[in-house]
């Protein structure tokens, strides 16, 4: 292969990668469920009594416990800006998929943080109903 065709090939590859990056980096459609959320909701439905709704998720997210704790203690009142860990002050990337498309894409992460954060906030694990409601609401942020 000549140097010229190699250069051309590399250039084409570069353009292709750039295009792919743009496509993947684009903000997701509001309310669209990720594959990870879709499967998680199917699992949660089995243990939930009501259909999952956006308003219920919104209420749960902003609910404040008598001890003052809430999801917003660390994630902040606004989801499209970074939060801060309540104790260490460490930056927490925004929860809104409109600005942080990595959110809600990994089941392992979702399970881990629901477990830890529900126990910290409520002193117990969240119910399937609470998790499902939060997920459908968060998906639209």
């Amino acid at each position: 292969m000549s140097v010229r065709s190699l250069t051309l090939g590399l250039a084409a590859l570069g353009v292709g990668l750039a295009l792919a990056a743009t496509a993947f980096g684009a903000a997701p459609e509001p309310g669209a469920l990720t594959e990870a959320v879709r499967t998680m909701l199917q699992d949660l439905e089995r243990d939930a009594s009501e259909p999952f709704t956006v308003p219920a998720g919104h209420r749960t997210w902003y609910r404040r416990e008598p001890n003052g704790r809430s999801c917003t203690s660390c994630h902040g009142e606004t989801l499209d800006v970074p939060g801060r860990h309540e104790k260490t002050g460490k930056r927490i990337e925004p929860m809104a998929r409109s600005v942080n498309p990595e959110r809600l894409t990994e089941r392992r992460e979702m399970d881990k943080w629901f477990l830890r954060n529900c126990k910290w906030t409520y002193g117990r694990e969240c119910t399937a109903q609470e998790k499902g409601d939060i997920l459908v609401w968060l998906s639209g942020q």
Partner: protein
Amino acid sequence: MGGIQRATGGLLLSAILGFAGYGVLVNALEGQPQYQQDETYVDECGACHLAYAPDLLPVESWRKVMAGLEDHFGDNAELDEATAAYITTYLEANGLSRGRPSKMSRLLRGLPDDPPLRITELPAFENMHYMIPRELEVAELAEGFLSPCADCHKEAALGIYDAERLHPGYGPGVWDGKPADAPAGFTRGSDSSSPSRGP
């Protein structure tokens, strides 16, 4: 300019940038940490706080920390069993141990039989930082005040804590050249033992 020149120019430029980058890296790692960096450790433990260098705490303390993640200084930091086991093994291999001398071994000085779980409560750590409340002119530091190492130790994330490599404007050089270690006989915690300032 032809394709060959362009390609050659690109290659040369990459080579130059590569060497420059290497130089910067070598310089940054001058005071190299002696522990193995681990991506899982940094991801899992660094999500909520600085992923403290494993050689800042004795192995016995790390074991206790890892056995109590559901109440991690008041927070829940539970991990699935496999990940917890992996991180415990990593900390056992890279934590402080008397049988394994390292640059940070001085943190083992004066260690009680039942070592504390917090880095900031190691006697040697307290000795190394005794001058901070004095310099800040406060009687006592707020809980957790010294926890974000990187506020002063700019290379904390790399496990580099040398007193000479603090952020500009910090450290013994600025504090009238006072020694980084407490004077002999200094212990923290009681008023009578505060270091004498002389006449």
